[in-house]
């Protein structure tokens, strides 16, 4: 492996940590790790900043995830055809091919590097599953060995520009309350999706920060209406992991079963939850399966075991938790196969990018998103290294402009207003309830948008706080911005398609086989984009 050149560290102005690098990767999940590894392999100097810890941040580390992993040839073509039939016309088979191709290559590389894959019943390594804590612990070591400088607990608050190009980022070291500024030849946003403040695994960091920073740099979002994915979760835990629920039955408070045969189980349970409590029980698992479930998905059993519940023999309260764009679809619109965003020097990977081209109007949760993180991280890291090489060392000294708006540079007179915690509560109130987000209707969306717009305006009138306060307020701003793009897009898509369920327009409209792009911050604009026009790979 190529050892990267050391990162330039110069000009300590006051207490600010001031660095310069070729590629800056923002994020701490698998897409960030793969981007850093790939960019380092190209010989670039890399800094990776994450607001949490590379190894535990994001939705993957606390999970056990499948990968979309299919050998090349007829089997792969058949798998893509099967998948494409489910995506409601919005996916592009070429992106599925590319994703499977790169994931195939990189998962084999992971095995060569020594990641401890289990052997299947034929004695061969089974590469189609990654145990989150082990995988991300392993990737951290791999990133370090590649010579990447890792800065944990360094949330990025805003991007920096030079001319029309993104030229770095600035933020705060939240454990030392010290500002940092990093000039870079190119930036990869691998900041994950937005969970709208829901209590799910990984959500603490998944506040949509990358969307906000990208929009301030001029990028647009796509597929934000596809943000209504919900997961079965034992109440009151945060364990939004679906696999054991394949062997669950559901019932109401009075014990009457919820009939899910041949229906969308999430929809049936969502309806029942609007009327009262719902209970689940893993009573469909054979004794053999029960052992495998306990061994293979131990975190899924922690909430139940620690509450003294036998999940196979008793029923226990279950709920649906919102997964926003984490296991939804929307994100930064990609402008090219290299994960460019249309803004020079800015790349997006993983859940920070829209996954419409891969998963269409359904969740890519589990396998597809996991393979997408590997593939898109790899593409973005590679392209960012090439872009940075073109401007060589100039990135180290060029003048930069701050791009951050909300909570950093208010346009209007300073005022007191809502706290970050109050803004997050507003987001939760509009984005989490089943009757607002899972089941949508135009009138309710308009009411929610009114409240979200008001919270945004309030925030924009406020004076910026200092480092740590600004970091919290920026998270709140990113969540509000994401919510507004999501509901404005949901209002514009006056039909139902995949996870976007409009009670007032329950059928799919063939006129809506298109993408919806969301742009703007103080004013949100929705633009229709025909598939195949200006989309990548055309």
């Amino acid at each position, binding site marked *: 492996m190529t050892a990267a050149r050391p990162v330039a560290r110069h000009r300590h102005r006051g207490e600010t940590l001031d660095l310069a690098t070729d590629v800056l990767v923002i994020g701490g999940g698998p897409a960030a790790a793969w981007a850093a590894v790939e960019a380092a392999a190209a010989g670039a100097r890399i800094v990776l900043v994450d607001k949490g810890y590379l190894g535990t941040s994001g939705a993957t580390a606390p999970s056990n995830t499948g990968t979309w992993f299919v050998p090349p040839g007829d089997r792969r073509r058949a798998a893509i055809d099967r998948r494409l039939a489910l995506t409601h016309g919005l996916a592009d088979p070429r992106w599925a091919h590319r994703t499977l191709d790169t994931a195939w290559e990189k998962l084999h590389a992971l095995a060569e590097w020594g990641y401890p894959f*289990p052997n299947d019943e034929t004695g061969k390594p*089974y590469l189609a599953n990654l145990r989150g804590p082990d995988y991300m612990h392993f990737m951290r070591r791999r990133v370090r060995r590649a010579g990447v400088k890792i800065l944990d607990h360094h949330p990025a608050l805003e991007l920096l520009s030079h001319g029309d190009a993104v030229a770095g980022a600035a933020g705060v070291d939240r454990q030392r309350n010290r500002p940092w500024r990093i000039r870079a030849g190119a930036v990869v946003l691998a900041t994950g999706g937005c969970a709208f403040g829901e209590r799910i695994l990984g959500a*603490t960091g998944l506040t949509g920060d990358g969307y906000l920073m990208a929009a301030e740099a001029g990028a647009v979002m796509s597929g934000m209406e596809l943000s209504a994915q919900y997961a079965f979760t034992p109440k009151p835990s945060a364990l939004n992991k679906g696999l054991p629920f394949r062997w669950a039955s559901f019932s109401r408070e009075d014990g009457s079963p919820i009939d899910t045969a041949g229906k969308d189980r999430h929809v049936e349970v969502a309806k029942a939850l609007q009327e009262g409590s719902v209970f689940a029980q893993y009573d469909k698992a054979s004794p053999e*399966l029960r052992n495998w479930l306990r061994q293979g998905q131990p975190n899924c059993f922690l909430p139940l075991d620690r509450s003294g519940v036998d999940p196979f023999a008793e029923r226990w309260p279950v709920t649906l938790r919102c997964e926003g764009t984490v296991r939804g679809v929307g994100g930064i619109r990609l402008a090219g196969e290299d994960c460019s965003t249309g803004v020079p020097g800015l790349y997006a990977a993983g859940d920070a990018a829209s996954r419409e081209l891969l998963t269409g109007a359904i969740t890519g949760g589990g396998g597809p998103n996991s393979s997408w993180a590997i593939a898109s991280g790899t593409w973005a890291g590679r392209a960012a290294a090439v872009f940075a090489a073109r401007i060589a060392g100039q990135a180290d000294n060029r003048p930069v402009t701050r791009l951050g708006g909300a909570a950093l540079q208010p346009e209007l007179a300073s005022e007191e207003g809502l706290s970050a915690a109050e803004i997050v509560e507003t987001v939760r109130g509009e984005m989490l309830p089943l009757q607002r987000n899972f089941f949508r209707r135009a009138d309710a969306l308009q009411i929610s948008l009114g409240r979200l717009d008001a919270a945004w305006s309030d925030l924009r009138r406020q004076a910026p706080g200092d480092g740590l306060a600004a970091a919290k307020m920026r998270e709140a701003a990113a969540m509000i911005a994401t919510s507004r793009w999501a509901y404005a897009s949901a209002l514009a898509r006056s039909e139902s398609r995949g996870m976007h369920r409009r009670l007032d327009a329950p059928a799919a409209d063939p006129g809506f086989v298109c993408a919806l792009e969301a742009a703007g911050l103080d004013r949100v604009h929705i633009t229709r984009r025909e598939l195949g026009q200006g989309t990548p790979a055309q």
Partner: protein
Amino acid sequence: MIEIVSAGRCIACDICVKACPANVFDPMPDAPPVIARQEDCQTCFLCEIYCPTDALYVAPGAEGPTAVSEAEIEAAGLFGSYARALGWRRGKPGGADKDPTFRLRAASR
């Protein structure tokens, strides 16, 4: 949410301060870290497996604090129970090579 840093088990290595993605803990001089921002905890249980001495306990409720005592968690044998289930030991990974999840994926098709 994170509820207990066991003073009896903790060796004040401060690994949890670094590894917690939500920055829940604050280090203390020559003493166990304190739970400084409990409301930020995402109830992911990862601090438990990174702890080399099984000194941390995360209660299953994600929506607010739970009243639990160290004595009852100790008596129930719950310190380190997630790490043991995974096969992690002393804060280091292990057991992924024995993960039978591929059997679940085959059975769920």
